[in-house]
């Protein structure tokens, strides 16, 4: 439905760049402030994961539509070490990096949908969506 916004994550400042793009896109689409912050925080967590665990990758954002709803799709992709146990990574309090371990499960709660594919040594691909009712959106679809 629309062009991708692609943010390459190769240094820390790019995490904030991904966040800014997410906030802007959410505002342009007519997301409420809470939905926009939910999305932007989840994007921050996903981008931070790429930076901290994989060393680099990219985040792509785009507006999507389905019957009665518009949304923002986030795809976070990296060629890092992969997630050995996705179930474990989604559990609150689990971390391999000595952090609190609420980034990935937190991001999943903030988004409406999340799908994770990962292969050891090959990288990780995460697709997540946040939807709002089409009636409240600012764009026709």
């Amino acid at each position, binding site marked *: 439905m629309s062009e991708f916004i692609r943010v390459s994550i190769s240094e820390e400042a790019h995490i904030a760049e991904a*966040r800014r793009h997410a906030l802007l896109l959410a505002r342009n689409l007519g997301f409420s402030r809470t939905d926009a912050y*939910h999305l932007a*925080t989840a994007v921050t967590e996903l981008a931070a994961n790429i930076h901290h665990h994989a060393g680099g990758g990219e985040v792509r954002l785009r507006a999507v539509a389905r019957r009665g709803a518009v949304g923002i799709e986030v795809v976070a992709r990296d060629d890092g070490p992969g997630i050995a146990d996705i179930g474990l990574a989604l559990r609150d309090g689990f971390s391999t990096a000595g952090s609190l371990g609420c980034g990935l499960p937190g991001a999943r709660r903030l988004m409406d949908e999340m799908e994770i594919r990962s292969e050891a040594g090959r990288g990780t691909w995460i697709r997540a969506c946040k939807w709002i009712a089409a009636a409240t959106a600012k764009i026709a679809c």
Partner: protein
Amino acid sequence: MKIPVLRLGAILLTSIQVDLTDTEVMQFQADVLSVIAETEGRGLAIDITALEVVDSFMARTINDTASMARLLGAEVVVCGMRPAVALTLVEMGRELIGVETTFNLDDGLARLQRKIAQRGDNALAASGSS
């Protein structure tokens, strides 16, 4: 981006107005703690009115900074969290556990002065100067 730490008598005041990278958040933590130690500040107010996104790293660092500041001997309040930020943090499962929060900076300063007074640092709290 260096976050200024202002001194108001025995209370230190800092306001996060911009997006910080993780490195800048850590720098902020180090700066705040060193100013507390240098000035023997009795209270620290962290204003986050302008923050739109508090991710898990920022939340953890605010928590840690508050714990460390308390270990040094300062009381801490976080002021002005936006409602949408509060909703996001709770949804994420990340509350700012153990950090006192107030609606705004005014309330934050009043709370700090009360807490400092309760500790017996009456002169400091009342005069507002050390």
